[in-house]
């Protein structure tokens, strides 16, 4: 039951730059120290996508997001958000963009609600009339209604993160840039954030969500970009990134039949069939998995088990960088 999946179609259908929610060209940031934080990044986030922006801590994700928002000016390269050039078009486009950048930040001695009021008052395009209702709705959405009147300083890390999300959701957004939104959340909170991201995306918004924890967001992403040491190593639809020729079929059989199984798999045109410990493994390529099963059984081999192993994003990352995902720079 694997067949239909790898068929994400024209991956570079994402390549329609007109329709891109986020587009950068040659985005580069060289810090005053001379260190290159971000190096020639060409981000492409199609509209409606949930784009997982992955990379270890220190790989340049946050600096990239800061440049997207006009907080940090690029040394070279250009940024477009929702078709508008940044930072020049910020006044026009940023009201449609909700952001969580490097963790939540609010005035510690104000309540959660008062903090949201301040942000809303700062927005020239928000309607004061609906402020109370919108703030109430945003707080409810992230489950903070009970703590709305509490001072921010008394919030737990998870509550702070939720308030940050509430601020990003204070009004309808076409694009959400969420930098490490699950930081500090317990597993329940992490699930809630995933559900929130899905919900927002289902309503038509584009979401770019960065994380250094692959497993946390892998499940919600339609697209993936992988950063390491300031460069974007790969990006595209998730199936495609994960699928790049490395899906393996693993055949379990009796020890004395393994050599036989390797020959059968090779006979099917599976290059690289080999005995891998207790199993016989081979890259699946374009051969349908049921063909493998039939061939093995048809040749009189006892088929004890059959597994199709898709590479995880972590496998992809390791293949791209030659090192583990959690290696900090």
């Amino acid at each position, binding site marked *: 039951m694997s067949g239909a999946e790898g068929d994400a179609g024209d991956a570079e259908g994402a390549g329609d730059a007109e329709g891109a929610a986020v587009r950068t060209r040659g985005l580069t940031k060289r810090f005053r120290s001379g260190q290159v934080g971000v190096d020639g990044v060409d981000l492409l986030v199609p509209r409606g996508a949930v784009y997982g922006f992955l990379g270890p801590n220190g790989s340049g994700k946050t600096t990239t997001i800061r440049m997207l928002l006009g907080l940090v000016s690029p040394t070279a390269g250009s940024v477009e958000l929702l078709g508008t050039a940044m930072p020049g078009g910020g006044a026009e486009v940023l009201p449609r963009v909700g*952001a969580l*950048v490097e963790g939540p930040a609010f*005035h510690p001695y104000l309540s959660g609600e008062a903090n949201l009021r301040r*942000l809303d008052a700062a*927005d*020239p395009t928000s309607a004061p009339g609906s402020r109370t209702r919108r703030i109430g709705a945003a707080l409810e959405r992230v489950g903070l209604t009970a703590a709305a009147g509490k001072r921010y300083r008394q919030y737990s890390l998870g509550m702070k993160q939720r308030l940050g999300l509430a601020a990003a959701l204070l009004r309808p957004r076409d694009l959400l840039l969420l930098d490490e939104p699950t930081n500090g959340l317990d597993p329940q909170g992490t699930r809630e954030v995933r559900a929130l991201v899905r919900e927002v995306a289902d309503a038509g918004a584009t979401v770019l969500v960065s994380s250094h924890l692959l497993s946390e967001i892998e499940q919600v992403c339609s697209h993936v970009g992988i950063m390491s040491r300031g460069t974007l190593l790969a990006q595209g639809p998730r199936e495609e990134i994960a699928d790049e020729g490395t899906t393996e079929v693993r055949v379990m059989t009796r020890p004395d039949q393994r050599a036989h199984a390797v020959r059968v798999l090779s006979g099917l045109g599976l290059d690289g069939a080999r005995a891998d410990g207790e199993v016989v493994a081979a890259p699946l390529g374009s051969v349908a998995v049921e063909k493998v099963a039939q061939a093995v059984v048809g040749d009189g081999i006892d088929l004890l088990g059959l597994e199709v192993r898709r590479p995880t994003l972590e496998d992809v990352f390791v293949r791209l960088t030659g090192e583990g995902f959690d290696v900090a720079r």
Partner: protein
Amino acid sequence: MSLVDSPPAGPPVSSARATARLLGSELRLVFGRVRNIVLLVGLAAVPLLIGTVLFVTQDTPVAGQGPPFLDRVTGNGVFLVFAALVSCLPFLLPLCVSIVSGDAVAGEASAGTLRYLLVVPVPRTRLLLVKAVAALAYAAAAVTAIAGVGLVAGAAFFGVGDVVLLSGDTIPLAEGMLRTLGVVGYVVASLTGLVAVGLFLSTLTEVPVAAMAATVVVAIVSGVLDALPQLSAIHPALLTHHWLDFGEFLRLEVDASTLFAGLAVQAAWVAVFGALAWSRFTTADVSS
């Protein structure tokens, strides 16, 4: 209910209205902060303290003893306003103004709220302007608190009457009140240069205490330089040199040129440090 489905929040409002709205929020932030309220109360306590001491001891200071105007307080409570202002100007007022203006940008940067204001988006020039106006409003509130409490306490302790000017001439109380207003206005205007310096220093750092301390140091160093006769050539340009010129309001003929000289120096400091603050803040990377 999905928020994404809710109707668009509203049409953009004019730049002036957006600035006014943000200013309202900023004023609530500055004047709602416990630290700032405590400082205001502390400043307002100074005239109360001076008045109480004079009232309880029933001892009229000899002219020339203690700060200027102190010897006149027991004769006319209005002078408690001036005595209190003279007492606060060298250190307490600059300290409070430095704390609020130095905190203006650095405080938001240190809390991380600066980046969220900028992505709202608030244009950087507008944010700086609002921060400057709010800090100035705080300075005005501080001076007004000293003067207001001074007047009430002076009237309560010693009564008020026609004002005897420095020249010995007497003017009616009503005109004396007008001149007191002039003093308050002049002292507030004298603090604008320091607000600009504080704001600029505030854009340089993410550590609010550093900006506050540096601003106080500027005011104090200016006072020290002003006291060195060898530097008399630069005295007229010093930030603090004209601060006590508000006594001009207590002469029969107010010499406008003296007051304008003081205001011009403040305007120059505001122009230079305002421009520095603007050029720094509108171009700096916000990495806090």
